[in-house]
């Protein structure tokens, strides 16, 4: 393992911001830590970088315990959330900074800077002032700067957080390609699930300083570990239920669940695509409270006579008007028993 966290704990006052976290990152792996703000994901990066001392546990890099190793000797890169480019230096000097710190000769440095700027899509920008850069350009320069000293581990804190949506979607693809080509080992944190899923080989979901789930994007998406992860991924149809065989008794009535599901008192998730609208006299009777246009489909919000709201994904043309009465049936293929 390139990076191993072993029971890593950070306390602020009495509160554990990082609570006995164990995490391994293999060489060439891209791991994305996903969590709401305050879940301790930035502290995790700072602890690995050596900017935040541990209250307990260990950070092991390349097989060596990093206790007592200061940030500048750890050989890891960190791209800050708001980039933190040095305002008094131009783009080239920002990128060259780490190379200078590592004693790289001037000629070699200049060549490396132009190579890196080309790599991030900003050829010839070396003499530009940092203040003249747009948000996306700043992000690229910050990336080039972090890559320059060839860190064994590159860490990204909300790498695309402040950019607008279309730019974010484009850059995430570029980053993914770049990391694949360079074979960089990456540990990124983000609160944006689509960013994490697009970027990562493996996603780690954090909650209150602990790891809630770890797996490939597909695994996490298909089988959220618990109600928290499911809701964090944007799923609203999460209800407590008692599972017996292939049926679950829930506030929405009997739900069909897949064969081999865990039995007893559980939490059940039905993805919106598995909520089928039928005529009012069939299934669970609901009233349409709202509908929101999602581009490829319409999200229809439904209020049953009894029990929590249900969200359904409808084709654009079939969405009923708010106020309409409909029936609801649940599709076993889109239903998951959690916990």
């Amino acid at each position, binding site marked *: 393992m390139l990076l191993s966290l072993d029971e890593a704990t950070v306390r602020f006052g009495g509160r554990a911001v990082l609570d006995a976290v164990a995490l391994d990152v293999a060489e060439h792996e891209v791991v994305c830590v996903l969590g709401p703000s305050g879940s301790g994901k930035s502290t995790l990066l700072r602890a690995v970088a050596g900017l935040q001392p541990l209250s307990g546990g260990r950070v092991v890099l390349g097989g060596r315990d990093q206790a007592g190793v200061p940030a*500048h000797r750890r050989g890891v890169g960190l791209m*800050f959330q708001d980039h933190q480019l040095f305002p008094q230096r131009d783009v080239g000097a920002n990128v060259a900074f780490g190379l200078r*710190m590592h004693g790289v000769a001037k000629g070699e440095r200049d060549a490396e800077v132009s190579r890196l700027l080309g790599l991030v899509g900003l050829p010839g920008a070396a003499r530009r002032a940092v203040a003249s850069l747009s948000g996306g350009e700043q992000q690229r320069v910050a990336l080039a700067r*972090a890559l320059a000293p060839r860190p064994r581990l590159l860490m990204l804190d909300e790498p695309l957080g402040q950019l607008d949506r279309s730019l974010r979607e484009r850059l995430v693809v570029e980053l993914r390609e770049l990391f694949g080509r360079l074979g960089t080992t990456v540990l990124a944190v983000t609160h944006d699930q689509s960013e994490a899923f697009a970027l990562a080989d493996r996603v780690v979901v954090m909650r209150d300083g602990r790891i809630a789930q770890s797996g490939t994007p597909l695994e996490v998406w298909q089988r959220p570990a618990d109600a928290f992860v499911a809701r964090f991924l944007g799923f609203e149809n999460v209800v407590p239920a008692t599972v017996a065989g292939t049926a679950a008794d829930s506030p929405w009535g009997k739900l069909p669940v897949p064969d081999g599901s865990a039995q007893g008192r559980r939490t059940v998730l039905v993805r919106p695509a598995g909520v089928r609208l039928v005529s009012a006299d069939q299934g669970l009777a609901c009233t349409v409270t709202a509908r929101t246009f999602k581009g490829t489909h319409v999200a229809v919000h439904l209020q049953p006579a009894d029990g929590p709201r249900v969200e359904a994904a409808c084709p654009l043309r079939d969405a009923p008007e708010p106020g309409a009465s409909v029936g609801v049936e649940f599709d076993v293929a889109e239903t998951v028993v959690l916990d």
Partner: protein
Amino acid sequence: MRLGLMALPVAFFALFFAWPVAAIVARGLETDGAWHLGRIADVVTRPDIRHVLWFTTWQALASTALTLLLALPAGYVFARLDFPGKQLLRAVVTVPFVLPTVVAGSAFLALLGRGGLLDELSGVRLDTTVWAILLAHVFFNFAVVVRTVGGLWAQLDPRQEEAARMLGASPLTAWRRVTLPALAPAVAAAALMVFLFTFTSFGVVQILGGPTFSTLEVEIYRQTSEVFDLSTAAVLTLVQFAAVGAVLAVHAWTVRRRETALRLVDPTVTARRPRGAGQWTLLASVLVVVALLLVLPLAVLVRRSLDAPGLGYYRALTRADGGTFLVAPVHAVWTSLQYAVAATAIAVVIGALAAAALARRDAGRLVRGFDALLMLPLGVSAVTVGFGFLIALDRPPLDLRQSWILVPLAQALVGAPFVVRTMLPVLRAVDVRLREAAAVLGASPWRVWREVDLPLVRRALLVASGFAFAVSLGEFGATVFIARPDNPTLPVAVARLLSRPGELNYGQAMALSTILMVVCAAALLVLERLRTDRTGEF
């Protein structure tokens, strides 16, 4: 790391401040190994001393009130009005603050004293009245109020007042309910600073007070150098120490309150062209006050220094036959510059190290306590420093009596707090994550300071050096105790010339003061060009 940064400043202040102060305490209250705390009561109940205490307090209160009255409108004018020549006016207002007290003393003597401008015009002399002292105090501290209050005022978001107006408040109510509460801590902090400076006023009172008026500071000097009652002087120093400590504690508290979150905006966008008769009248009256109180005394000073035909007073400075000095008075210029350069170097090293340690986010209680401690030499008054040096550093293990470094050390002690005050806000403003970014890229702590902090604070460092230089150059209270008679500094030479009778001595004092004023004003004007942050605490 932090302890490393602190080591030098702590050692410096322990050796050259704490120890002299301890020596004063011992001198005042101890004889033959026994402590006599009763001496404090004995001294402060003496009628002459009670008179001094009373006068010191009320003149400080009156000076503070008068300064606020005259300078607050100017603060508004600088913050909210935009007019041609504003930059120049700002510099003019700031010049007096860095001028040596003896220059102000001479200037007001030339304006209000015997044969002065007022005397010539109306036959009225004010130099023997308290008015001369009060006006000179306003002259000095005008800039403190304008900078502290006006600086914040300019950054208050005018939309806050507009929001109050939209909710139905009249302009006056909006000001009273929105702006005034936001300004109040700054006004309080400025008032406390002015009180402190005037409470410990030395040079001005020494020159303008005559035999009638004496502040604590002057009395300490008199007891030491004329009455030779070191024990009384020591007790008085302790009384002053306690008073200053109390004021500084209150000041620290108001400054902390001032740091509570206010919506601050770029000061360049809040100023508007004056509109309506009210604003024009206000602008005009502020200009009149500045002209009469700040510019006129200096103009008269220069005029008086030129009274003798063919620059006679200036030429007299180059001769040593006046009998007042062993060397030509002009030699004092050279001496002063040497001392000031040495003092600036010491003050900048000590002050910058202390500021770097204080600026760290993780600075604990202990370090923040040191912050307040650093302010003490500023308030505790130069005379205390000089007196302390005199009785503490004159015997082994540290006998500096014969060393030229004694004067620069004392001046550095007075100048270092200015360096800290100037550097600290800028250092605190450096984003800690910039340093972290550099560290992650492989920069050691020392390189982080050199590569990240230094480029960002270089200007502040220059400004701080300039301040320290001006303060050292004009330093009078401490220097007068310890400067060697054969090697006076400029302010000491001016004071000595003024204390001698005769037209030639008076004229030479005016000429030397003019030279001193020009050097200090030049230093300040260079600073004004460098200065980016106009909200500093001075």
